[in-house]
């Protein structure tokens, strides 16, 4: 009785039936915010600009900004078509392919990195041959890209697949019957309609690639990206030492995510 009364007294948006789920969710939100605030509270205790002015930090930022977009692009170019196929066709072995796509999310990144090493490491035939012609697959920026792609690509595949799956197949059939081939139909209909989810997938993949540490550390400890440099700084100087780069990573990721979302939301030519 008292609950319904308080419901009446609440502003029109108040919905007493959502009180319990909101409280439960709130606990988690507070738990997210708490470490964040505590960490940021230390900002005053360390010079940020000097921290970022070191050659190591500058290089780590350059490496991250070089590798993460490349990994994201690779994941998108190969992952979005795969997502479309998985959303539209059933074929023998589809379950297996789906399991393989989730695999990199299931194994710990550090183990994933170890797996990449056993496949293309310097002492494997592939890795040795590549190093021979001057393209080392480990301990190089390419190695970083390999590690990031392995760990981050599933995000865009799984998200985009859900997006394509939500499109009524008859919209595509109508396009075919109006004279467009499968590829043109994909460009004109499927991709624009799934744009929101595909962009969300790209954002997740990029964020994951930027922050990727475990696999990267195994495959390419050097040259250092922001996360690996953060690890090195932490070993040498503790929490305060990592503040500048951690904030830089956060800022850069947010910046790129905002940019991707802006591009993704850009109305198509036809919408004006």
């Amino acid at each position: 009785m008292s609950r319904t009364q308080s419901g009446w007294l609440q502003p029109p948006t108040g919905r007493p039936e959502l009180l319990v789920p909101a409280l439960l969710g709130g606990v988690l939100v507070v738990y997210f915010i708490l470490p964040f605030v505590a960490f940021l509270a230390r900002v005053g205790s360390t010079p940020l600009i000097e921290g970022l002015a070191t050659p190591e930090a500058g290089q780590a930022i350059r490496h991250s900004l070089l590798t993460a977009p490349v990994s994201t692009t690779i994941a998108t170019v190969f992952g979005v078509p795969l997502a479309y196929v998985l959303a539209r066709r059933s074929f023998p072995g589809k379950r297996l392919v789906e399991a393989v796509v989730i695999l990199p999310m299931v194994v710990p990144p550090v183990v994933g990195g170890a797996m990449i090493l056993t496949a293309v490491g310097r002492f494997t035939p592939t890795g040795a041959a590549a190093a021979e012609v001057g393209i080392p697959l480990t301990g190089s920026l390419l190695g970083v890209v390999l590690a990031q792609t392995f760990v981050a690509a599933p995000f865009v595949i799984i998200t985009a697949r859900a997006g394509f799956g939500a499109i009524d197949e008859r919209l595509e059939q109508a396009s075919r019957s109006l004279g467009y081939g499968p590829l043109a139909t994909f460009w004109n209909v499927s991709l624009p309609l799934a744009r929101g989810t595909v962009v969300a997938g790209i954002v997740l993949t990029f964020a994951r690639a930027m922050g990727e540490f475990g696999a990267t550390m195994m495959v390419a400890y050097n040259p250092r990206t922001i996360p690996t440099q953060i690890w090195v700084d932490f070993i040498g100087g503790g929490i305060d030492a990592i503040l500048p780069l951690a904030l830089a990573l956060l800022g850069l990721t947010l910046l790129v995510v905002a940019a991707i979302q802006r591009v993704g939301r850009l109305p198509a030519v036809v919408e004006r």
Partner: protein
Amino acid sequence: MTADANGVGSATNADDDASTTHVDGDERQGMLAVEGLTHRYGTEQALNDVSFTVEAGEAVAVVGPSGCGKTTLVQAISGHLSPSSGRIRLRGEKVTGQPPEQRAVGLVFQTSTLYPHMTVGENVAYGLEPQGIEPSERDEIVADYLSLVDLTAQRQAYPAELSGGQSRRVELARALAPQPELLLLDEPLSALDRSLRLQLRAEIARIQRETGVTMLFVTHNQDDAMGLADRLIVMNDGAIEAIGQPRQLYESPPTPFVASFLGRPTELAATVVDSDPLQIEIADRRVTLPAATRAPPTGETLRCLLRRRMLSLAGDNEHTGLTFSGTVERVTDLGRRYTVTVRIVDGTEVRTEQTAPPPAEGEAVTVTASRESLLVFTATGKTVF
């Protein structure tokens, strides 16, 4: 053309009729010819040896209950499904293996497939580009087709801003703009409410008249089919049950299924009492059928169908028709008319319709059926009367 309703009792019969139309290319070809189309989903038979033709400019309805294979048929003709066997010809040209974009078949589905990210005008123009039509010409064509469906003012609107009926009409305009050889409509009216449905049915009839487009549409609604089609193809369980003109199939249905599907009659069991002349017993009445087409042996059980529209309560023509006594089971008030359900002596429920004030429930009444309301089939579905 397989227009003779009584002549087409089975799919094989229809098949023969259809294939003779296409012995060689010089003869007048149907716009669409479907030959022995069969399709299975796994072990489930969706289409079983379906054959028919559609002439240029004709409006043909494929009717049947849900799950009879109608949608599979549309998908096969439009090229979105590759049939297990059989052939499809458009203007005599074999298109069975061709992808949908090469077929010049316009397609309208039950639910809207307008592109939400394009305006009404852009949706209608969408099918013109692959035809190689110049942008300047496209504008004019779009204007023509939007005026055909009376939506010129909505050209700049987005599909989300349209009402249900408007979006159906845009969809028609979009399908017609590239001037397809054949317009396929898959349950085009099923998602609409009754008044809109009647309105759009008239609209489709007008558009078909004005454009002269060959139209094949699929529906589970017998009223839409009867109201729109020059010819009906009645399907049941993946096979063609009958092909013919709507009125003809309605008046003299070749099978009990066609009779039930088109007329929603009441079914009663009957027994043969005498075979020459044929006399049968329905409930507690004996009826002589001098014009019977078959003479089943005495004692055989027959299926009698009574058309609901020709049934009345305690009618004035008791001496000419059949009468059954019974009690009123239920009365349903439908506003403009009443449905009265009467349980007659053998326990069967018979439904009659009337506009006059109905009797009370439980009241003893007499149901009168004129002789024309009676359809008699053998237990296996052969026409007797």
